[in-house]
């Protein structure tokens, strides 16, 4: 009982130490970089931009969704693939993420016939399965995958699992020169991804 009583104190020490080390040293970046997938941009059959969060009631994409979409558009315009697949988690409504991204791509000069929208996927594993159903018959085997750097390891693994050869084109790669709050946020995202990876292994997605 005495030992159990000391547990919160010891845990408190551990939390404070981890917090201080994380906030005031580049430890979070080292951890994030070590579990990340290295960028490998190469010609592919399609560029697949994964969903990046809900659209606002005004029809604005989230920061993450915008950055991913713009990176995908940039890669398309540089000629890395003849097809740009834009995913969105919402149903195919007027304010759906995939539709707004498609409109953005058209405004940036991507021809409509090169744009494929993917709607309704709820999870990364679901996106991989739906992408396969949508693209496999069109002969797509190699995909240039666009998502956040902290999400790439899990995303690349599930896309590889469904049969694609994946080239990673991450956005928001971990930076070294961060302020304390950004370092803590980076560690939070990295730990969340580690938990998600563990869940994917347990659930049999990987």
């Amino acid at each position, binding site marked *: 009982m005495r030992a159990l009583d000391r*547990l*919160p*104190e*010891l*845990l*408190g*020490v551990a*939390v*404070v130490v981890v917090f201080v080390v994380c*906030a*005031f040293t*580049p430890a979070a970046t080292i951890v994030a970089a070590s579990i990340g997938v290295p960028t490998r941009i190469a010609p592919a059959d399609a560029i697949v931009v994964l969903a990046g969060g809900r659209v606002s009631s005004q029809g604005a994409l989230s920061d993450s969704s915008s950055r991913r979409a713009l990176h995908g558009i940039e890669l398309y315009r540089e000629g890395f693939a003849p097809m740009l697949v834009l995913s969105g988690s919402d149903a195919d409504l007027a304010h759906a993420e995939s539709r707004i991204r498609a409109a953005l791509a058209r405004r940036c000069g991507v021809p409509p016939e090169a744009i494929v929208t993917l709607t309704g996927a*709820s*999870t990364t594993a679901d996106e991989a399965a739906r992408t396969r159903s949508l693209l496999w018959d069109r002969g797509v085997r190699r995909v240039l995958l666009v998502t956040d750097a902290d999400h790439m390891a899990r995303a690349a693994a599930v896309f590889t699992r469904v049969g694609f050869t994946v080239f990673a084109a991450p956005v928001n790669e971990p930076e*070294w*020169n*961060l*302020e*304390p*709050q950004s370092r803590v946020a980076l560690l939070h995202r990295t730990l*969340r991804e580690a938990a*998600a990876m563990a*869940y994917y292994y347990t659930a049999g997605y990987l």
Partner: protein
Amino acid sequence: MIGHAALLIVGVVGLTSVGSYLVAVRWMGLSTRRLGAAVRAALHCVGMMTIFCALNLGVGAALIVGTRLLTGRFVSLYLLEDGTWWALSALQGLTWSIWRRVND
């Protein structure tokens, strides 16, 4: 490399810590010998906040996964991302820790 924000935070927090220590000792007459016990009590609070956070997130995740399995309806695990979980867990941990202390 320590950035400007980190330097400012460490400097200001250090300064207010020393200032409040002096106020406590010289004007309020608090015992310096009890400072160690106060730090331990604070660490106990932090630990309890962490335990409640893990408990809340664990139960939340189990409910979400259970709902998915039992109803086939998708509920996002990203619901566990809300900062309110941390705030309320902190409140639970703090209350628990103080409750235990006043009962000693």
